[in-house]
């Protein structure tokens, strides 16, 4: 098992957002986590990446047999978790290339590998930038600074391609994308998919799932996974909306 989340509870600023999540993800799988606004989707993504504002109050997360909650954010990334941000941060004065070179080499060092020399590194960048159709000029530009919404999301997938994670968590990667950009991003994700890694797609809309076909769909509502199923569940949600889940859930509670 690549990732196992057991009864996860988390709060932010005193409010409990996650109220007992259970989830198992294995290699080669694509999981979609859907849900209405405020259901805790992005919180789950941030907790996986180790964002400090989120306090885990109960439960466990196991990743590759390691207790993920004991690892700091950089070690989680070095172990192979990658979060594609919903709102990628602009960092003026830091070039994409510089960020990635430092990241690649710190990850390699952590895993006992030798650092890449400049030539091999640039080769890697070139190869991966083609994958998401990212213009080479973005490499020397400051991270996300002045990028359009679509360029930022593409840049996230580009970074993912370079860092080659075991588990990619895409947090609302479709938000703010027009259909062409969506296709490019989805295409990039699909190309990176192998038997040896896994993807969690966090999304509000079914739209992205037309292009990234999930093996499993989970519906998150009020901090819990209330329904799980195959890709047809996403279509059902698209058709009926989330109200169906909400009333269904009300029935269960009743």
């Amino acid at each position, binding site marked *: 098992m690549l990732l196992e989340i057991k009864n996860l509870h988390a709060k932010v600023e005193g409010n409990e957002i996650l109220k007992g999540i259970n989830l198992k993800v294995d290699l080669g799988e694509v999981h979609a986590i859907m849900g209405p606004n405020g259901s805790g989707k992005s919180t789950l993504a941030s907790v996986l*990446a180790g964002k400090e504002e989120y306090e885990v109050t109960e439960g466990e997360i196991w990743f590759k047999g390691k207790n993920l909650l004991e690892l700091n954010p*950089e070690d989680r990334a070095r172990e192979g978790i990658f979060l594609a941000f919903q709102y*990628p941060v602009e*960092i*003026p004065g830091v070039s994409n290339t*510089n960020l990635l070179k*430092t990241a690649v080499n710190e990850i390699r060092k952590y895993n006992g590998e030798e650092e890449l020399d400049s030539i091999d590194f640039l080769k890697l960048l070139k190869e991966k930038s083609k994958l998401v159709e990212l213009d080479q000029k973005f490499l020397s530009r400051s991270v996300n600074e002045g990028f359009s919404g679509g360029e930022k999301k593409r840049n996230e997938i580009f970074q993912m391609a370079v860092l080659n994670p075991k588990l990619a968590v895409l947090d609302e990667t479709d938000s703010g994308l027009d259909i062409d950009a969506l296709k490019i991003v989805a295409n990039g994700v699909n190309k990176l998919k192998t038997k040896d890694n896994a993807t969690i797609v966090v999304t509000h809309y079914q739209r992205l799932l037309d292009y990234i076909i999930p093996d499993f769909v989970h519906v998150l509502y009020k901090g819990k996974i209330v329904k799980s199923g195959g890709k047809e569940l996403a279509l059902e949600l698209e058709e009926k909306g989330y109200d169906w889940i909400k009333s269904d859930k009300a029935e269960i509670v009743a």
Partner: protein
Amino acid sequence: MENITDIKKYFINQFDEFEKSLNGEKTSEFHQVRKEALSNFSKLSVPTQKDEEWKHTNLSPLLKHNFSTLVHKENVSSEVITNFLFDKTEHSLLVFVNGIFSPELSRLIEIPKGVVIGSLAESLKNNHPIVKKYLGKYAKDENLFFTTLNTAFTKDGAFVYIPESKVIEIPIHIIFYTKTGSEKIITQPRNLFVAGRNSQVTIIEHYISDEENIYFTNAVTEIVADQNAIVDHIKLQEESKKSFHIARMEVDQERSSNFSSHLISHGAEISRNDFNARFNDEGSECILNGLFMIGDEQLFDAHTMIDHAKPLCNSHEHYKGILQDKSKGVFNGKVMVRRDAQKTNAFQENNTILLSDDAVINTKPQLEIFADDVKCSHGATIGKLNDEAKFYLKSRGIGEKSAMAILINAFAIDVITSIKIPSVRNYLENIIAKQFIG
């Protein structure tokens, strides 16, 4: 030393000994200037925090020590100096050890005829006409305690003279190396850089020391940029963290001249920099950039003044500070736009990052504008490192220290990108990285 009369008495008493150490030189014309300065000095009092210009800078840690003005010749190997050179750049090198020129450590490359790059003491002895004309003309010292002290005890320093239309492409790297021994010493470099009409030169003033010991550097630098001259000045202050560094730089700009200054400062327990630039004629440009990085209980103070005395000149000033621990920064940027100085463009900015809750910055832009057709602006920001950006970097596998270094470098970089020599920029980037990742 308990009170302010003591430090004055102390230096005045040392003057006789100092005079003796000048040997034959005390008969020179300049010696009269020294004596006058000493007489002025005896009438002045040590600046205290009651003086507006010293409001945030408490000098009492400096006044606790007796610093000897008598320095002995010290031997320093060239290997020691090599550590402070910039890689892969050809440059002329002047080395001063404890304020005294050291010809065996220095070397000059491709010096055209008429150009002087060397020791001020030598040129004073030879009564060089340029020294006679300019020395002490800009750093007027009637009421400035430390400048007056420097003038009274002027012995050596760097003298650079670039005659009309000479272009010196190879940078001149001037190292002031303090070798500390059992005695606490004061060194008082006196520098004069004169760039004639249409000439061009790059000068790096670099202050370093052997060990983290207590000493005092009291430097005065006068710079003249004559018509159309281009002068790039870089000052690196990397003194011992226990030392004291007080420095004054006076710049005179004639018509259509171009002067740029970059100050990078991370040494000394107390460091005070007075930079004054004057536009004496139209069409000139002045850049004053600064970067200070301090920690522990260090204090950095920059007082700058750009005097737009004439119309049609541009000035750009940008100072950035990165403060850790209990350090304290002071930035006072004065821009004077006089009544005749129409069509002036003057821009000033000061940005500070505080890395700890105990660090303090006092920043004060001071614009005095008496002309009505001018563009002037100023701004100051004080902030912390962006936590969102830091988390973003960490989420890519970059560790705490590297993330800090990357973000600090990103913050600092725009005040040093205008330095034209790549190897100097590299040297500085290394300094920035070392400051914060140890």
